């Protein structure tokens, strides 16, 4: 299974990337929403996208809306990586087609629980 981690901070990408790999995913990375769309386009099947909310160029929400317009990715699980303040916008993200959220910072156990909720972990 493949996971795309989208965040403009390379440090955060590497922390989240490590957790994702520990949970058995092959890791892809992108620095903003636009890059993420390109990666998805090039990659073929990606099971999971973990996308930060606040990013330059294209933010996580705009990425979500754009990605959900492409039927090829309808089964891709999109999980919003949020901060406390962004939680207020959760309903908007769900309406736009997000599958789940995870608040950062998070541990491997927390991500595992989230993956269980969306059927990507036993």
């Amino acid at each position, binding site marked *: 299974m493949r996971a795309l981690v989208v965040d403009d901070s390379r440090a955060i990408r590497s922390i989240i990337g490590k957790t994702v790999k520990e949970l058995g995913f092959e890791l892809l990375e992108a620095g903003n929403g636009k890059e993420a769309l390109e990666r998805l386009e090039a990659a073929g099947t990606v099971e999971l996208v973990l996308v930060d909310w606040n990013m330059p160029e294209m933010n996580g929400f705009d990425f979500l809306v754009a990605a959900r317009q492409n039927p090829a990715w309808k089964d891709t699980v999109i999980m919003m990586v949020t901060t406390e303040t962004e939680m207020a916008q959760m309903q908007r993200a769900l309406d736009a087609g997000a599958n789940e959220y995870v*608040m950062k910072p*998070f541990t491997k156990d927390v991500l595992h629980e989230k993956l269980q909720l969306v059927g990507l972990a036993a």
Partner: protein
Amino acid sequence: MIGQAEFDFLRALIRERSAIVLEPGKEYLVESRLLPILRGGGFASPVELVARLRREPRGELERRVVEAMTTNETSFFRDHHPFEALRTRFLPDLIAARRPERRLRFWSNACSTGQEAYSLAMLLTEHFPELGAWDVSIFASDLSREMVARTTAGSYGQLEVNRGLPAAFLVKYFERHGTSWQVKAPLRKLVTARELNLVEAWPALPAFDVIFLRNVLIYFDLETKRAILRRARQALRPDGLLLLGSAETTIMVDDGWERLPAGVSVAYRAAAAVRRAGAA
């Protein structure tokens, strides 16, 4: 560092009051959990604290010390699978069996901060709308007064709602107050929380359809586990279900149960022979 005499006194006290077994070697644990009480109460050392506990058995300080020794780790939909098994397998059967009386009684034991009770409340509301017209109640209990108060409040911090709770449930069943999230009133109404010590006398309780007894027997010795399982059986309807934590089992503890496996989860029901004896 806590002395041997103080550790032994506390260990015996905790065991007597809560049945929680603290093995030698857990000095560090006892010490770190006592720290807030030592500081808050102005005790210079564990020696002073223990002296006061000896003078005031069954007092307020003793209660706080015992409560401080409990582990309150929990999460929404803990372990995921038991709740899936309830939703897909056990509840549909149980609801069919109760349709004539339209009543269901649940008990979330050792409920800690209440996530288990509210997970159940959400699951019932979301997936079994028919129950809206039934008499459904969830009794939640814990030894700790503080945990009972937290369960009643049904209010959770960001870290707590980040664990195991689907986003859709968070926005649907919770209200945001600043940085905390409170379970909405209709769900809170389903849950009644009370202090109840599993090793003391239980109050008169209605017969339950499902008892959650999860992640608490692990703290007790074999005899205590056995006694509690036996009482849990008596507190259940004859066809009622018992759910244990993932590291707990009735096997080799109390053989009055039959196992009902469902996927990777197991529920327990009073064994047929025991049910017949009860009916006779």
